[in-house]
């Protein structure tokens, strides 16, 4: 095995993994806090990727800068979706399963809206710095991957800060641990759930832009992203933000290495097989679940 190649794919794996983690924390949050498996999470990320693509193409706004616009928009969208669609089913007997089917419907609608608006062609976010590379010794650091990595670091730490240090974040955690008791303490469960959902969708928006900088994307890409989401969250443990971050890194490293040393068509097979094996052996995740 070539040492430089291994190191190189390890580094790019970590950088990809950080973006997976950014995409995954929101998914983990809704699953853990609200018992809602948002299958359309990746589709929201894809939507924000397409929006920032259009903003870049028509107005020349840099994808990172356009996050200032897209993140609040995604937050608002998440709140609206929660209020209209998720809230009515939170009292159902099997919230998890019904939420899966419901959000499946949302995913189908969003995917086809994207298809109608942007067409089925694969897109690539080609900015002025896409091909720029830092060279340190024999190793290459591609600029967009570095940016995605930094973005993911900032995003994950922001969500972690929000959950651990702010009052609203503490309320979110309280609502997860003791729904009834937290209401007794004056926490408005509906409002907290809405904020959680909004934050989750905003995270998916940021993650989607990150993914768009790494890969080409098309209206169907969210299916593959969804599998990565499940992998990240199940490896990291449901509801565990730092676990999801670590899970993202692990998955990134595995895909990075397998992309370097395996024929391309087997990489996805390995990913899906890995998810099946992990689900069978340790469905509660590799790390201790905690809020």
């Amino acid at each position, binding site marked *: 095995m070539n040492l430089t190649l291994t190191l190189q794919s390890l580094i790019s794996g970590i950088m990809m993994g950080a973006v997976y983690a950014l995409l995954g924390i929101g998914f983990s949050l809704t699953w853990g806090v609200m018992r809602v*498996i948002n299958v359309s999470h990746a589709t929201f990320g894809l939507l924000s990727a397409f929006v920032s693509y259009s903003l870049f193409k028509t107005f020349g706004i840099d994808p990172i800068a356009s996050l200032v616009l897209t993140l609040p928009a995604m937050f608002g969208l998440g709140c609206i979706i929660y209020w209209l669609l998720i809230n009515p*089913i939170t009292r*159902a007997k099997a919230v998890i399963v*019904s939420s899966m*089917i*419901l959000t499946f419907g949302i995913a*189908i*609608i969003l995917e086809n809206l994207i*298809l109608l608006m942007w067409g089925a062609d694969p897109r690539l976010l080609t900015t002025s710095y896409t091909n720029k590379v830092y060279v340190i010794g024999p190793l290459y650091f591609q600029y967009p991957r570095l940016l995605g990595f930094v973005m993911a670091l900032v995003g994950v730490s922001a969500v972690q800060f929000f959950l651990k240090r702010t009052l609203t974040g503490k309320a979110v955690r309280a609502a997860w641990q003791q729904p009834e008791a937290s209401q007794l303490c004056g926490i408005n469960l509906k409002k907290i759930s809405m904020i959680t959902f909004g934050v989750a969708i905003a995270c998916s928006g940021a993650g989607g832009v990150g993914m768009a900088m790494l890969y080409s994307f098309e209206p169907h890409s969210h299916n593959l992203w969804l599998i990565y989401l499940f992998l990240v969250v199940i490896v990291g443990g449901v509801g565990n933000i730092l676990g999801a971050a670590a899970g993202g890194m692990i998955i990134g490293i595995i895909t990075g290495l397998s992309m370097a040393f395996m024929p391309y068509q087997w990489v996805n097979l390995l990913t899906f097989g890995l998810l*099946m094996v992990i689900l069978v052996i340790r469905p509660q995740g590799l790390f201790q679940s905690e809020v």
Partner: protein
Amino acid sequence: MAHGNDRSGFYRVKLILVGIIFVLGVYPWLAPPVYFISFAFNVLTYITLATSWNIIGGYTGYLSFGHVAFFGIGAYATAVLGARLDLGPALVILASLPAGVVSALVAVVIGYPCLRLRGPYFAVITLCFAFVTELTVRNLDFLGGADGLWIKGLAMPIETSRSIFFELMLVLTVVCLSSAHWIETSRFGAGLRAIREDEEVAQTMAINTPKLKIMAFAVSAFFPGVAGGIYACYLTYIHPDIVFDVNISILIVLMALFGGGASWVGPLVGATLLTFVNEGLSTFVKAEFARIIYGCLFIIVIIFMPNGIVEFLKNLIVKRRLRTKFVKNKSSQLLS
């Protein structure tokens, strides 16, 4: 309601069903246009798929999002068996039966570890299983890879061959529906319902839940396998994109849930209605709009009729009946 009355009602329903089956059996020999035979064939295929999905998804409460894998396995097993044993065009269809058995065996092997997972985990792992099977088939050269496989077609006019396949699918559908009905009324079905309601309690009641679950999974994989075999012979060409299409998985789930998962009537009604809707939509509007409407259906089903359209309508009728009864009583009271 008196017992005798109930029974006569049951016989009436049975008589109507036999009549419908008879009419359907005669239907292709009335020489309708080929399009209508193909359409009826599709309806029957989806009824079979949704009904067999319902055995694991509806009765047992284990939502399998990868049922299309069994359909595809059946199709490929039939094609490979036919090619390996060098069966003639007429005999290839018979290979769909062992293909169904292959599907059921795969279900047993997969189900043994997977059925220990519950709720969302089971849904995810079955979805993954469907992707894994598709990718494996796509990358194996002796299965035709990305080029697909050809199957020898029947050397006769298209109307006749389509009619034959229609009749075969009709037989399969009837067998599938009656098995579903039998399961529903049997001890086996009662055990499955117990698992759906509360698996721990079922276990303490000495129900052998792992065995029952695997049996249910195998039965619900057998019928899609056979259907896949018939479908492969009907198309004479199979490709991973066609027989492993994830949309079929999703459609099956939607059909069964739309109709209602508690009884065999639900998937029957759901599949029939949605295939008609699908056909209507795909001829009159753009495919994207059709799929958007599908997505809306998912949401409507979950929010407004979580028990399916059959239960929803039944409740409506019961409510109306109660209301008229109440109003009548009140008016008669007023009169007296």
